[in-house]
């Protein structure tokens, strides 16, 4: 804590120092600025070129014909009635996006949406009024240093998690079915493969994980080796049809799938004995 007189004296001293020993902005400092600006403009143009030349006119060719290193030129036209689109924000909002996924209890939603961003903004605004010491050397400002490191790490982690956050959607999960069949060794069992397809398209992976696919966000168990328990297909199909009969009141009932699909699902689960 430095008194305002001290700080004024320091600033007066700074003014004198600069006046007597400073350098002229032009051209000395401005040279650096100009070089940096050239770098900035070059980077922007380079990004634009890479983005354009690795993408095609059709957003659906991304990942196939075109590599789309920096994403497609545009996605499909906006459709407010969509039932299969997975919304994602621009990268600089990934931290906020992932924050919203972290606060997965209804009472805490407001913390992620307005609470934390508002607190961050207030901290930034009051910072110069809280830290009124004259000290500016970083190593003598341990609180500031630790805060900076923590902010950088958490922003980095949140951004990375946001960028890689995946939803277990039927259309994507179903492509993994042949791999599952091969790794679990039930490729020859028609019922099991059909059951795997039912598993992939019925939203099971919204809560469960299976051989690395799916979401563990909600705390449901991994099912890659559920068949090791030795229970037969019938056990699994009746369990899935109405888990509450087995004391599980968290998992929804899947009786609406119908007997055939439930049976296939049961075969699939009992054949899932872990990858070979």
């Amino acid at each position, binding site marked *: 804590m430095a008194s305002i007189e001290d700080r004024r004296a320091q600033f007066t001293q700074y003014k004198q120092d600069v006046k007597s020993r400073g350098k002229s902005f032009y051209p000395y400092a401005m040279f650096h600025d100009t070089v940096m600006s050239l770098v900035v403009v070059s980077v922007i143009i380079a990004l634009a070129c890479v983005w354009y030349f690795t993408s095609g006119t059709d957003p659906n060719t991304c990942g196939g014909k075109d590599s789309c290193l920096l994403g497609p030129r545009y996605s499909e*036209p*906006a*459709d*407010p*009635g*969509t*039932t*299969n*689109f*997975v*919304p994602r924000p621009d990268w600089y909002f990934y931290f906020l*996006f992932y924050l*919203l*996924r972290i*606060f*997965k*209890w*209804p*009472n*805490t*939603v*407001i913390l*992620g*949406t307005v609470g934390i961003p508002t607190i961050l903004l207030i901290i930034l605004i009051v910072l110069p009024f809280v830290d009124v010491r004259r000290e500016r050397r970083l190593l003598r400002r341990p609180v500031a240093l630790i805060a900076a490191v923590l902010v950088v790490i958490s922003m980095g982690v949140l951004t990375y998690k946001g960028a890689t956050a995946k*939803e277990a*959607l*039927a259309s994507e999960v179903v492509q993994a079915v042949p791999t599952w069949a091969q790794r679990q060794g039930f490729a020859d069992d028609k019922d099991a493969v059909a059951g795997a397809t*039912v598993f992939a*398209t*019925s*939203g*099971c992976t*919204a*809560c469960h994980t299976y051989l690395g696919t799916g*979401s563990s*966000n*909600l705390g449901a168990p991994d099912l890659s080796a559920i068949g090791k328990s030795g229970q037969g297909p019938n056990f699994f199909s009746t369990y899935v049809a109405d888990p509450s009969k087995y004391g599980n009141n*968290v998992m*929804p*009932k*899947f*009786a*609406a*799938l*119908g007997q055939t*699909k439930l049976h296939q699902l049961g075969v699939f689960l009992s054949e899932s004995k872990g990858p070979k």
Partner: protein
Amino acid sequence: MTEPQHEDRPHLPGPSLYPIGFAAGVACILVGLIVNPTLIAPIGAAIAIVFGFLWARDATMDYRREPEPIEPERREAPLTAPPIPADRGEAAMPAPEPGERFPRSRFLEASTLGLGAVIGGLVTVPVVGFMVVPAFKGQGYPDVDLGPLDNFPEGKWLITTFYMHPEAGNVSRRTAYIRNNGQLNGEPSFTIISNRCAHLGCPVQPNGPVQPGDKKQVTPGEKGQKVTLVPTIPAGGFGCPCHGGQYDPEGNRTAGPPVRALDRYQYAVVNGHLVLGKPFSVAHVDGEGKNAKIHAYKLAGPGQHIDGWEQILYPIQPPH
């Protein structure tokens, strides 16, 4: 002359009714613009102009009186004449002290600031009103004809996509999950769930097989309306692709961040057609299908609590 205000503060204008008349004229313009722009508004304008002119005349009387030819004559009166009373003319005024603020400058200061505020108000009030007010008016949710009841077989879920405002085009495309619950007390019963996630409004997806092969399109109701029906089996309820919210088939939250159940739509059966009404918010649903007990509330935005103690955070909803 019995005007009391001239006795000790010579340059301050006396009380006047002109400002009141001016204000009445402005009020008349505003009322006229709403009620009858062709007749009442011009009358108000005329009143405002006349009173404004009189007010300005009145307010600047002292200022304008200075160069009147009479005063120099007075000033040229013989030196032996008795001093002119302090309330007459300029000559009797003592020379102002340096930096003294005498009434006229104070008046000019006040009127400059006041007129500036009037100009600012005249420009910004309509502009801000134009920007803000329309957002809270109109729109609303019209009834949407979804076509004959035959298209909704009992016990089956249909992903129903339609245009809320067919004339507005794609931007008004909406999706609802509809299930025919069969008859309840002799009336058909439906469950109509909005696909807008109760967390932050992402489009929820059915947790179960979708059968696009059995897609059906009907074009009932208004011109431009097109209703698409795709069967689905949301055995695991509904899931949100953004932040992982999960719902059971009745729309109750089962996991994740959603603050309440999925919104629903009112419905009616008119001439054998299913007609969609206004959406409303649902805290939670007890029971299933046609016997469900729905805890309904006025439509609220996603992420806004409608029950529990958190509802104090959202005491009022904008009018729609």
